[in-house]
């Protein structure tokens, strides 16, 4: 009898166990404290099933169960499903559960909102979203969603990244991809504890991944971006077809060949335009001159308009259309410029790239659609010139923070080729400044600051020059100038033609450049380039230290001192050097003038986590040196 009871109980426990292991858990009470610590929401279960039916179509079936722990986690209860002409939403279902896992209500069709997802900058696109924003007043609560989408744009396969944000932990998640018979999946894994498990039935392969018990992932100052830290599986097709255009992604070459098909026959230009190009370029001696002339010709007769049409948004408008309308998006304008250059006898390549200063690295050994922008690459015997065709004011050849220092997929007649755009060192991104200050005995003064900005450091001011009117430029300079109290009496900003350089001249009134106390005057000789804040010190640095932006600053400040004052205290020269950069500052008296000189070089690089403390120390020393003061004292009274 006793045995019988225990056997029954064992059976019960076993069945509960089996249920807990298989189906989703809705009760918030069973979340382990290790997972709820520091989390606003917990992904209880996420199952994504991606089924490739053919080169033309696939379905994605998703089930996710999320427990929202507090009000800050509300956004993780929101479901956003993107769709467009080639991606349909088959169904969306949802259920809200209370803290104990008891069903509260189902999501109704009227709860599903439908919005345009084109964004402000886009004139036309067909991106839309279906959004469910459930509200529930008591935390924690749990929400379950099931939905399915069908895609006929297999240029993109699914990317699986179940950790949807910071302060989110995960109990379990799985990703399954089922391929058609005889076709392999191409994939790229990141931050995964276990590699894919692959099974095969009737020559159909199934790939699957599992993830369990992931605590919240945090980013750190000077650390890698969030998307590099989360577990992720990117998948891509071998062969695919979009709106009748078939292609392969087995290699970059093949992907380029597909783009060639899309671009084919789209470079026709009217004779009148051809004639204009010929007249314009005939007399020019070098290819460089011709390229510049054609580029400016294009800039003067077009404007950038974002219209996402054609083959999933990947086919450019015809060159003739751009010619007659005078507008186009990045694809259309690059294709148009390519056609114009061809008339002038210059070959160029349509270059697909990731545009943005976050410079997301291209995964080189994983040919796939990793880009969002198109530029034009013009090889010349001397150099390669990159043309940004969506900017009517850019210099030919400048890439900078938007497209510089990264890989681009060139679409050449022989297919795709992955090549690098220009790289930059600190010496390319400089700020060189000379300030002359005439100090009076009340601590006030007048000054002139002449600064030359190059490379990335010239970009802001070029934008200011291009976009703002003079009175707004002055307002911007007031904001950008870091002096405790000043007036800009006069300014000039000048973009140097054809080079990435801006010259700035500020005529300054400095009513309180020195602080007067009794017979003493205190001056911080680093007038305009002080590092004010330093990164937080942490005891536990987890991730690499990443410096993305190399630069070089030189400051010279000369103070003409009022009669009767002599230096009482002058800071010692400072020289700091580290793997991250070098710093040097010194103050001297020279011909009766107080002369301050400072140089700071910051490098680009990636360093092990344990070097973080060194970086903080380096920046602290720099900051401290930047605040040092000179004390001038009047001859005794």
């Amino acid at each position, binding site marked *: 009898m006793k045995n019988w009871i225990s056997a029954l109980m064992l059976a019960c426990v076993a069945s509960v166990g089996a249920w807990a292991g298989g189906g989703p858990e809705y009760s918030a009470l069973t979340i382990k404290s290790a997972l709820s610590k520091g989390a606003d929401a917990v992904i209880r279960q996420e199952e994504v099933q991606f089924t490739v039916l053919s080169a033309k179509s696939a379905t994605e079936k998703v089930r996710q169960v999320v427990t929202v722990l507090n009000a800050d986690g509300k956004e993780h209860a929101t479901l956003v499903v993107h769709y467009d002409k080639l991606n349909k939403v088959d169904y969306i279902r949802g259920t809200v559960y209370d803290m104990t896992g008891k069903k509260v209500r189902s999501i109704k069709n009227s709860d599903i909102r439908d919005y345009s997802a084109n964004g402000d900058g886009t*004139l036309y696109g067909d991106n839309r979203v279906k959004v469910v924003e459930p509200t529930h007043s008591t935390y924690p609560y749990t929400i379950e969603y099931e939905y399915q989408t069908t895609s006929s744009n297999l240029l993109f396969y699914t990317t699986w990244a179940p950790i949807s944000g910071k302060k989110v932990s995960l109990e379990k998640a799985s990703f399954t991809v089922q391929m058609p018979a005889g076709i392999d999946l191409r994939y790229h894994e990141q931050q995964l504890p276990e590699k894919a498990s692959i099974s095969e039935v009737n020559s159909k392969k199934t790939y699957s991944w599992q993830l369990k018990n992931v605590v919240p992932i945090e980013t750190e100052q000077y650390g890698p971006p969030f998307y590099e830290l989360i577990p992720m599986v990117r998948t891509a097709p071998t062969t695919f077809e979009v709106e009748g255009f078939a292609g392969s992604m087995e290699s970059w070459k093949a992907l380029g060949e597909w783009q060639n098909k899309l671009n084919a026959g789209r470079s026709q230009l009217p004779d009148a335009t051809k004639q204009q190009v010929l007249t314009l370029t005939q007399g020019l001696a070098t290819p460089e001159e011709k390229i510049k002339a054609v580029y400016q010709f294009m800039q003067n007769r077009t404007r950038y308009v974002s219209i996402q049409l054609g083959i999933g948004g990947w086919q450019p408008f015809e060159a003739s259309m751009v010619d007659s*309308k005078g507008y186009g998006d990045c694809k259309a304008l690059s294709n148009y410029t390519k056609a114009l250059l061809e008339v002038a006898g210059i070959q160029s390549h349509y270059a697909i790239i990731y545009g943005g200063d976050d410079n997301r690295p291209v995964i080189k050994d994983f040919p796939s659609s990793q880009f969002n922008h198109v530029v034009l690459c013009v090889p010349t015997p001397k150099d390669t010139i990159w043309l940004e065709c969506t900017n009517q004011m850019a210099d030919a050849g400048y890439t900078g923070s938007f497209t510089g220092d990264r890989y681009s997929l060139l679409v050449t007649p022989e297919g795709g080729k992955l090549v690098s755009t220009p790289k930059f060192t600190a010496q390319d991104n400089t700020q060189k400044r000379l300030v002359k200050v005439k100090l009076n005995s009340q601590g006030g003064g007048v000054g002139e600051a002449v600064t030359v900005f190059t490379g990335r450091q010239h970009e802001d001011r070029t934008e200011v020059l291009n976009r703002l009117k003079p009175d707004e430029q002055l307002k911007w300079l007031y*904001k950008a100038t870091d002096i*405790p*109290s000043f007036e800009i009496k006069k300014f000039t900003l000048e973009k140097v033609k054809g080079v990435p350089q801006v010259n700035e001249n500020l005529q300054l009134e400095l009513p309180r450049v020195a602080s007067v106390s009794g017979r003493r005057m*205190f001056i911080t000789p680093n007038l305009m380039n002080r590092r004010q*804040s330093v990164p937080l010190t942490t005891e536990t640095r987890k991730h690499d230290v990443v410096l993305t932006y190399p630069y070089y600053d030189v400051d010279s400040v000369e103070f003409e001192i009022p009669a009767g004052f002599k230096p009482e205290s002058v800071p010692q020269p400072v020289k700091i050097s580290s793997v991250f950069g070098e710093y040097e500052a010194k103050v001297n008296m020279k011909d009766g003038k107080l002369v301050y000189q400072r140089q700071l070089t910051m490098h680009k690089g990636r360093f092990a986590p344990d070097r973080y403390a060194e970086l903080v120390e380096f920046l602290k020393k720099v900051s401290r040196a930047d*605040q040092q003061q000179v004390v001038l004292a009047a001859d005794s009274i």
Partner: protein
Amino acid sequence: MPQWDSFISVRMKFKLIKKSVGVALWFLLIIPAISVAQQDPFQLGKVSPEEVKMKVYALDTTATALVLYDYAESSFLFDDNTQGQFKRIIRIKVLKKTGLDEANIEIPFYKQHLNRKEEVLDVQGFTYNLENDQVVKTKLENNGIFEDDLDGNRMLKKITMPNVKVGSVVEVSYVIISDFFHYLREWKFQRAIPTAWSEYRANMVPFFGFKQVFSGQPFPFHIQESKEFVHSAGINKSITRRDYVDVNVTQFRWVMKDVPALTLEPFMTNMYNHVPTLEFDLALIQFPEQKPNYITVSWQDFTKERLTDSRFGRQLINAGYLKKTAQEVISGKTDTLEKVKALWDHVKNTMEWNGKQTMLSENIKKAFENRTGSSSDINLLLVAFLQESGIMASPMLVSTRQHGLPHTKSPMLNKFNYVLAYVKVGGKEYLLDATNKDLPFGMLPYKCRNGQGWVAVSPAGKWVPLIGTEKNLQLVTGKFEILPSGVLHGAIEENYLGMSALNKRAVIRELGEEKYLQQQSLRQAEWETTSYQLSNVQMLQQPLQTKYQAKRIGETQPASVLYISPMFTHGVSENPFKLTARQHPVDFVYPEEKTFTFTYQLPEGYEVESLPQNMSVSLPESAIKFSYVVQMVGKNLQVMSRLQINKAIFNPEEYASLRELYNQLVAKHSEKIVLRKKS
């Protein structure tokens, strides 16, 4: 967005038969689609060569583009439905490359469902360029016109003009036919680019009485006139019957000329408050031989309407379902204010705000049952709770800062967008919001500090200034010991009360205490801070307090002269008012007092060589006052800095003195104490 609310079902029901014409008319006759063309200087396609040749705009040579003219005319159409018609022509000159984007034009419109919608019709456009001294015209084709459905209700027609270059003139005209005839489109006379001519005409008919409400900068009208004429309108009774009626039309015309570009400045409430805008509010619907239907005329009527509105005042009636809870909450309390506090606290703590800012509510009972709702659900619920407990409370309509200032001269519902609960206890007014858990009792949320709020109380309501009455204090004290090497050790206590505390509590809620304190640790290289302690995070009526230890890094060797910056890390190092001139008022939003007191124990064997001098400056009527005092207190040196901002808004005329006061404050805060080793 327009408020369709109560008028939706109003449809024209013509009973009048004046001239019957028994002819089949297949076209729909339009009322005042009056031929104003001959007196209208602006016609589509009639661009002058001077406009195309123009290189700069003389009145603003820096303009990137210029609205040569912007013209619109509103009318009413009558067929078997009443509709509004809005005709627009806009002509823009592109002067610089950055002005090219002006050639992309967006037309917002609205649809409720298939039978209640707006349609954008007859979109036409031309681009004019000068080629070889000839004006060449390019037509806008259909492939340059797009439509975007933003959310099922709000629609956008987007137009991109062809062949636009620097120097081009672009011109677009369109007509909007609207089923929402009671919503007469507003008109803004100013934009981010200058406008040479902006004209609006409204052809009013006697059936609808619209109030005209003008807001923004009082920029003068170049023309403001009206004229009357009689128009014969045809009304289809059936396919074979058509009635005619004579209608007196009053055409109003408003023109502004040479309106400069809109400018932005820091510390501004809301730039759109300044845009000269003409709006219309439907006050009366009266069809012939029918009783007039007053929509909003007087404050009495407006009040009555609000209090009987099913989505506002009606929500407060029959709130018996709250009785039991209300009694539990106030049980044992005799003092009215205590009861108010308890009820407010209860609503605040039990109701979850869904983040939506609203002014009307469908069903506060349902919100109460679900324990979640929009801002109006929650605050109306609070009013209902108070009323149900026998306390005189009313809902108060507010326009948030983002929404612009409300019109105090004329009752217009869509000038409001938020509700607060208004209570008066013992002669004192309390404005209550129960949506923000960090808000102390009686404190006005930041977003509501915007002009005046209107209390919906019989008979005619009343305006109450939306000024916070709370004390806004920042009080920082520090006790430091100075070592002969220039190293400083100190213990600091910071107290925040009022808005600064509210802001900090919001950050603490977001980050958690641990993270918050981590972020507090100073990011200045000269100082190291430790031993943080945070108190009163939950005690909302108490000051939020932080205590910590700080150490300033100095030299390793003793120095004969020591220079001390006495303001610790609380010195204002930069004047927030950098620009020398100002066009719009400076808005601090709330008055505040910031007092910093630091005491220094001098190192043994050192004496004071020089000290900053005491200072006291203020603006007239002590609108803002700064004082700085250095004194010996016993053996210690004490430095006290106090800034009292006693009013929220400073006019442009006060700007120069405000800026100078801050200049002096910044200078004073950078001054040093000099200590010398006794010889």
